[in-house]
């Protein structure tokens, strides 16, 4: 194995538990210095790195910030309080955040072709390591040139660690210090997924962003298990960093755990930030906890994580949740919801959802969403989709197309409204359409207050005018 790889730290740099700001500043200038020496050494990105700290000073003044590592560049282009719109440059694609990533579990988004995904503006697709390692196996993907080539997807890919699927899908999965033990679904043999192996598999798959193996517990669980999981996640991140063979091409994101306990979350954030990773995810949410706890955890983590690096809230989700988390300062999201709900006949619309299986849809000649400009809404009536859903494959396809178009448009609207300085107006418009009677949920009101966004015009029970 050789000497222990110190990961993203250059040799000889000591890392101590320094105050967060100083650590960030120190490591950033060191990195900038390094790159000034060897501008394009192993740098796979198209744009050359800025080479002076003068740029850094200037960008701080403009409240823009720029962070780059070996395989990622994150430049905040606009803000509103905690919300930010950024350009995320990855080896395969230049993305704009906030963004939603559709889940292509087994190397495909169900029922969509690459050309359609590109057409609707999809930037990053998520692949599930657990499923891909089963079939067709990471070795085969590697042999054939990586998942990008295998799928022929020219834009960015992200793989998760495989841990979550194991725990949620497999009977008798168990987590030990070594890793996740489980019964192989193929032949029932006992197997072990270690942090090292998860990273190895993800190295073979070749996605732009890979996720560390974390000890994930449901937020509905209480007790010492959560603390155990959080500390184990920190121990495992070091093993993941050590095992990562392709830091020049793949970005390893750490995942903040700690359940709903702010103290544990804080410890976890500090520990991960110390490791100076290119990006961070907020994990362990979107699992059935109440919304009030959910937003508070997101708010705490986004406040504590480095402001110049991307933040990914895993498993989110509903459009409303995405708007709230973006207001609180998150950048990236993934969820099976839009495509899964399409297969059950539910369409995403500004008012919420439209259940096309409902008998009332059988004679409705309106499009799914009269304001939507996607291929489905421009050509089809609710009545036709109604007769297709749950009966014909075409129904699933058309609804998935519409739902993903909706999510991509939401991503674009979030990004552009922040850049153009009209984010609060966008949020208010969004909430007004979804809650025309003004019955915005309390948790949304609380979260927006912390985010510093005035939504009183759409929130009050005494709604006088639309202004």
């Amino acid at each position, binding site marked *: 194995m050789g000497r222990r790889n110190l990961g993203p730290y250059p040799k000889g740099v000591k890392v101590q538990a320094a105050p967060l700001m100083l650590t960030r500043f120190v490591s950033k200038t060191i990195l900038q210095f390094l790159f000034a020496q060897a501008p394009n050494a192993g740098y796979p990105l198209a744009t050359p790195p800025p080479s002076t700290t003068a740029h850094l000073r200037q960008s701080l003044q403009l409240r823009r910030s720029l962070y780059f590592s070996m395989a990622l560049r994150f430049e905040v282009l606009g803000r509103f309080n905690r919300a930010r719109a950024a350009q995320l440059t990855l080896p395969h694609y230049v993305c704009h955040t906030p963004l939603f990533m559709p889940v292509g579990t087994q190397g495909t988004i169900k029922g969509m*072709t690459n050309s359609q995904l590109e057409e609707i503006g999809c930037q990053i697709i998520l692949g599930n390591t657990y499923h891909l390692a089963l079939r067709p196996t990471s070795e085969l993907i590697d042999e054939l040139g990586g998942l990008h080539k295998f799928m022929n997807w020219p834009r960015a890919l992200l793989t998760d660690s495989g841990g979550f699927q194991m725990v949620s899908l497999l009977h008798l999965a168990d987590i030990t210090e070594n890793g996740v033990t489980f019964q192989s679904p193929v032949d029932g043999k006992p197997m072990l997924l270690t942090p090292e192996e998860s990273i190895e598999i993800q190295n073979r798959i070749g996605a732009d962003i890979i996720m560390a193996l974390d000890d994930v517990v449901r937020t509905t669980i209480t007790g010492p298990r959560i603390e155990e999981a959080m500390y184990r996640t920190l121990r495992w991140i070091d093993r993941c960093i050590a095992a990562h063979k392709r830091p020049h091409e793949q970005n390893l994101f750490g995942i903040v755990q700690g359940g709903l306990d702010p103290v544990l979350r804080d410890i976890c954030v500090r520990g991960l930030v110390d490791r100076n990773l290119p990006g961070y995810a907020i994990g362990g949410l979107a699992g059935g906890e109440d919304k009030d706890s959910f937003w508070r955890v997101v708010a705490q983590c986004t406040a504590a994580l480095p402001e110049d690096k991307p933040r990914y809230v895993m498993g989110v989700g509903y459009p409303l949740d995405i708007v709230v988390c973006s207001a609180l300062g998150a950048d990236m999201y993934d969820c099976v919801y839009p495509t899964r709900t399409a297969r059950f006949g539910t369409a995403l619309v500004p008012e919420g959802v439209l259940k096309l299986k409902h008998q009332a849809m*059988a004679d409705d000649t309106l499009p799914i969403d009269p304001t939507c400009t996607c291929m489905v809404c421009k050509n089809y009536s609710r009545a036709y989709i109604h007769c297709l859903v749950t009966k014909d494959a075409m129904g699933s396809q058309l609804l998935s197309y519409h739902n993903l178009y909706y999510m991509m448009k939401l991503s674009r609207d979030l990004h552009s409204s922040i850049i153009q300085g009209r984010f609060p107006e966008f949020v208010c418009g969004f909430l007004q359409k979804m809650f025309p009677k003004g019955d915005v949920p309390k948790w949304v009101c609380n979260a927006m207050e912390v985010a510093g966004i005035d939504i009183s015009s759409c929130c009050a029970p005494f709604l006088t005018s639309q202004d």
Partner: protein
Amino acid sequence: MKFAVQKAWSNSGRARVGVLEFGSNHKIETPSLLLSTRKGLPLFISPDLLSSLPFPDSHLLQVSPFHFLEGISAKTISDVGGLHDVVGLNSNDYGLVAVPRDSLVSLPDCDGSNKFGASFETPGGRRLIKPSDYMNLINSMKPNLWVTLADEVPAWVSQKRNKISVDRTITWLDQCLSAQNPSNVVVLGPIVGGSDVEERRRCAVEVSRRNVFGYWIGGFGLGESRNERSDLLSAITDHLPEEKLRQICGLELPEEVLQGVAAGVDLFDSTYIYHLTLGGFGLSFPLERRTRAIEKDVAIEPIEKAGSDQTKINLRHIIHRKDMSPIVEDCACYTCRNHTKAYINHLLNVHEMLAQILLEIHNTHHYLAFFRKIREAIKAGEFEEFHAMFVKNRREHLAVSSVCA
């Protein structure tokens, strides 16, 4: 809509190339393939991908009105503006042909038919369809071309049943014509009568007396023997006026299509693509016109692609797991330009819908190219050789595989 025969095959005069005009001046050459649909759209190819198929060959779609017996009412179809608007296909670009039978889920049930209506197995169960119900659907759909309600019988029923089927079909033809929307004059009259040549002739004569654009030949593809089919087909088409369009249902495999072309049929539907797609097969039979047999030494190869033959590739087979080549080299379809056998093999193994989407695109593309080759052969005056050589090569392969087995 207009139809004209362009060139007849010189030798025995039955196979012919024609031109069908519809919409905003779209000309489709026949013999041509009607794409099978479910509720008006192909099973897996959404309209934005449909436009990537060859133009204008891929612009004729066959629709069974019985797919719309449930879910969306005839009135709603009318309200939206007709079937073209319902399925999002521009009526200037795409031709929709309404035929009751789709050989998949709308099947004639000759035992259940009576003097009031024809019985069909439909997606909504077995129904007795009266001419008035049928016309209600047709008038709301406003297709480019449609077939009147027929009492279709297979080849082995009694002579009495054949006679009854012709009588009923003619009666319903008149009822349908009188109930039609005045603008819809483009209708195909059905030719039924089972294997009784005399009844077929009588039917043809009666139908010809009505104002029909062409003929729809029924009763085939219902399990009759392939050997007797050619003679019966030729006997039927001999009684049909040469200058009018002929359509048939139920001839699916390439060899069967060739039989139909040889008898002088112009339009075909085919569920071959559907079965191939669901089975995980990609069409691969060679398309170049062979005027001589495959070389002996080339033909005797070890069977390396198990489960495949020279006509199609079984993409589920493990042998394709790492194959980074497209289904067919030089195929210009979306699937072959963008994806590999290895990827489709993976998709099939994990039961992903994208596999069927990609396969339906490729198989449709390939089969349409086959029809194009047929038309080229007729125009070059070589259809008989093309037909014979095609059948011989496929049989040759089967002989080889039985030797090596």
